[in-house]
């Protein structure tokens, strides 16, 4: 225990309500109250000798010392650094995901390149859960076009100061709804779970889907095929996007990592909260699963934008085959590629004209893989853009 490791300025921003909420969630009960504050005791036998004192107001003299005392006691009882407990108290109304990666560099550092990659992976990981939650569908490949609620959610997600201990990234998700409405106290939310905010739905989906990925990895270790195991987990929220995010999080692809979830105190915590550990061989499986899911899955209702590079029609009575070189509109990665699709009649003629005049086109449909090619099925809304729109 080393209370001096605490950022003292954080002590005074932690309100007694935050502390009380933390204690309540961690099995402590208020046993005494007077004008100065409240005393708390825990039912757990290991804590039976302890009693914690919480001043009534953070403006009281000596408040920071009192909180440092409390953190020292909690640190000894819980076997965790006081700074970590304080972080949870000051972020009592936020869900926290701790991604502890184990890079080869010394504890508390990470190679810049690896760190950048890991962070991009974490972003993709969170984004995938938000997109799946917002669309309400669990699909192997998530749509490139994201509902606006996803962007609003991602704008609220914060990266907190990393902690040493290998290298610990901390993601904080505030539990407020998209319109900024404050959540109800957790006692009410417990009775009315439908009031749980979108943000908690996302973090819960993040946990469930990531746990399902680990479970699929176990099945693969037991001899099941990668594709079968991961396709079976799609209804639990597993997607190629989520797997890609997890694979990238692993600092270059091979460094093991673990993810711990702590839950805001104003909503009831999910029943399962164990730390999810990805060993090096798990990450290889996850990487393969991402590729396999993309290979066989249909990517529904995407819009492509690009230039026509190939045209082929054997007769005017049949549809013509068109190849476009471009990107999926709205895809954060903007991966360039070639896509095949068929056009009939006027649309085909318009495609020919756009190729002659070298104008950009857009088209909507479902992407599927056939061999090494990506085909756009159910193609519709073919448009040749004016120069001003391109």
């Amino acid at each position: 225990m080393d209370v001096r490791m605490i950022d003292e300025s954080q002590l005074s921003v932690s309100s007694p309500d935050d502390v009380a909420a933390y204690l309540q969630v961690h099995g402590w009960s208020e046993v005494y109250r007077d004008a100065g504050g409240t005393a708390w005791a825990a039912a757990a036998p290991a804590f039976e000798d302890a009693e914690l004192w919480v001043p009534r107001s953070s403006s009281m003299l000596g408040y920071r010392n009192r909180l440092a005392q409390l953190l020292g006691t909690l640190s000894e009882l819980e076997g965790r650094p006081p700074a970590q407990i304080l972080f949870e108290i000051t972020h009592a109304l936020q869900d926290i995901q701790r991604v502890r990666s184990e890079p080869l560099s010394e504890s508390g550092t990470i190679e810049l390149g690896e760190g950048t990659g890991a962070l991009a992976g974490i972003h993709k990981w969170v984004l995938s859960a938000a997109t799946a939650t917002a669309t309400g569908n669990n699909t192997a490949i998530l749509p490139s076009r994201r509902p606006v609620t996803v962007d609003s959610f991602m704008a609220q997600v914060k990266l907190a100061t990393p902690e040493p201990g290998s290298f610990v990234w901390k993601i904080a998700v505030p539990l407020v709804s998209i319109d900024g409405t404050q959540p109800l106290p957790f006692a009410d939310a417990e009775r009315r779970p439908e009031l749980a905010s979108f943000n908690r739905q996302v973090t819960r989906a993040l946990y469930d889907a990531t746990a399902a990925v680990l479970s699929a990895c176990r099945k693969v270790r037991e001899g099941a095929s990668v594709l079968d195991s991961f396709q079976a987990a799609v209804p639990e929220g597993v997607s190629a996007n989520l797997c890609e995010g997890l694979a990238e999080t692993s600092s270059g692809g091979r460094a093991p990592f673990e993810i711990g979830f702590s839950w805001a105190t104003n909503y009831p915590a999910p029943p399962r909260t164990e730390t999810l550990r990805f060993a090096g061989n798990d990450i290889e499986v996850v990487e393969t699963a991402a590729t396999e899911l993309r290979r066989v899955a249909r990517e529904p209702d995407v819009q492509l934008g690009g230039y026509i590079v190939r045209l082929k029609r054997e007769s005017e009575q049949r549809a013509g085959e068109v190849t476009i070189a471009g990107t999926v509109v709205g895809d954060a990665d903007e991966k360039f590629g070639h896509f095949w699709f068929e056009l009939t009649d006027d649309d085909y003629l318009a495609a020919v004209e756009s190729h002659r005049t070298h104008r950009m086109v857009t088209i909507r449909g479902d992407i599927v893989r056939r061999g090494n090619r990506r085909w756009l099925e159910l193609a519709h809304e073919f448009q040749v853009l004016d120069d001003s729109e391109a």
Partner: protein
Amino acid sequence: MIDPVEQGHANRKQGYYGECVVRAIAAAAHLKVTKEELEPDGVDFEVKQDQPGRYPRFKRIELSVKTHSNLSRTRRGTLQVSMRREAYEALNGKVGEELDIPRFLVVVDSPKHFSEYCCLEDNKVSFSNLAYWHDLMGEPDLPANQGTVTVSVPEGNLLTPETMVALTCGDREEAARWMSA
């Protein structure tokens, strides 16, 4: 003329001794004393009464200890103690407003020279000093430009093991039971 550095050392040693006297009284009352590494402004330590099975299990007070070897006494039976503004303001709040637990001033009246602090008398060791407690909670704030204040501590407020328990638990009868248990 006394070397100010030497005087500073002497004052610190005297202050340390005064705190030890108060600790000894607390120990004699079966109370626990905690000194925080980063003590709150104006507080020297916390005294705690630990009684398992009761809520709250711990009743606590904070003490500010001032040690003097040249206290002046009035005919009305009070000790005149000069305090800096900050020290006074650390003690004159009210529980429930500025304070979460009670705070008291303790004044230790010590001999001038350390060789007289503790003497052998017959078959026992005697501490040649007395300590007094004083409650400033709820006393008025000082005018804006006043840097020091003199407080009158009644000589009757002797700090004994029993009075220290009474201050800690806030009840003389409970203190009597505690001391006779």
